[in-house]
C-alpha cells in the first residue's frame, strides 16, 4: 500500500522501504535501491546496484549481461520522482501550476527524453551513483538533468521530462 508523500523538512536519505512507499513502481521495476542525499524538490543522489540476477540482464545479453540504456534512463527518472515526491507542500505550491482537482499523482510517467548519452557499459558488480537535478516546471511536467556514475567514471547523462501519472 502506497502512503501519501509526507512533508520532509531536513530529510537526508531514503531507505528501500521508504522508496517503495513513495513510488508507484514495484519489483521488478523499482530501480533505485537507496537515496543517499535528498534536497526535496531540488536535487537528489541515489544508488542502483547492478547484479547478474537482475531479470532484465538474463536476456540482455545471454552470457554477456549489460545494463540496458533505457533502464539507466528509468533509474534516473525514478530518482527524480523521489526528489519531487518528498517536496514540502509549501515548496511545491509555489512551483506547481495547480491541478484543478487538487490531487497530486506521483511523478511517474516519462514524457520526453530530450537527450541522453550512454558513455560506458554498465555491468554486474557496478554500483551506479545516480544524480537528478530538477529544472523547469510546466503544467504537470518537470524537466530533469540526470547523470549516472560508476566509481569515478561518468557512464550516462541526459535530460528528461517527466509528468504525473
Amino acid at each position: 500500500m502506497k502512503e501519501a508523500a509526507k512533508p520532509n523538512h531536513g530529510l537526508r536519505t531514503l531507505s528501500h522501504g521508504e522508496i517503495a512507499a513513495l513510488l508507484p513502481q514495484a519489483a521488478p521495476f523499482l530501480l533505485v535501491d537507496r537515496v543517499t542525499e535528498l534536497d526535496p524538490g531540488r536535487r537528489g543522489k541515489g544508488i542502483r546496484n547492478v547484479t547478474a540476477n537482475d531479470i532484465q540482464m538474463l536476456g540482455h545479453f545471454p552470457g554477456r549481461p549489460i545494463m540496458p540504456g533505457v533502464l539507466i534512463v528509468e533509474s534516473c527518472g525514478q530518482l527524480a520522482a523521489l526528489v519531487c515526491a518528498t517536496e514540502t507542500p509549501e515548496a511545491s505550491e509555489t512551483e506547481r501550476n495547480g491541478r484543478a482537482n487538487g490531487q497530486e499523482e506521483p511523478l511517474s510517467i516519462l514524457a520526453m527524453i530530450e537527450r541522453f548519452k550512454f558513455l560506458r557499459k554498465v555491468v554486474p558488480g557496478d554500483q551506479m551513483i545516480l544524480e537528478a537535478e530538477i529544472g523547469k516546471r510546466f503544467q504537470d511536467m518537470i524537466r530533469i538533468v540526470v547523470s549516472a556514475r560508476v566509481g569515478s567514471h561518468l557512464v550516462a547523462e541526459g535530460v528528461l521530462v517527466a509528468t504525473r501519472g
Partner: protein
Amino acid sequence: MNSETRAVVEHRRELTERIKSVLIERLDLNLQPNEITEDAPLFGMGLGLDSIDALVLIVGIEDEFDVTVETTDHHVYRSINTLADYLMATADKAAAPSAVYDA
C-alpha cells in the same frame, strides 16, 4: 519613417528572427523562418505545438535571452509576437506596449 519607429521595427525584426531560431532549433521543426507567422498561436490552433514543446521552448528562450519565463503566464508564449513583447518589456522598460500589457 521617424527614427523612433525605425528603432522599434528593427528591434522587433531582430527579436523575431532570434525567437524563430530558438523555435526551429530547439523543437527540431521542419520549417524555415519565413514559413512561420509571428502572430499565429504556437499552441492549439496555429502551429499546433504541444505542452512538451512548450517546456522545451521556454527553456530555449530562457537560455537564449537570459531571462526567466513564468510558465503560469500562458499569454507570454502564445505566439512569437507575445514572446517578443515579453522580452522587450523585460529587457527595456520603455518597450513598445502590447494589447494586454498596458492597463
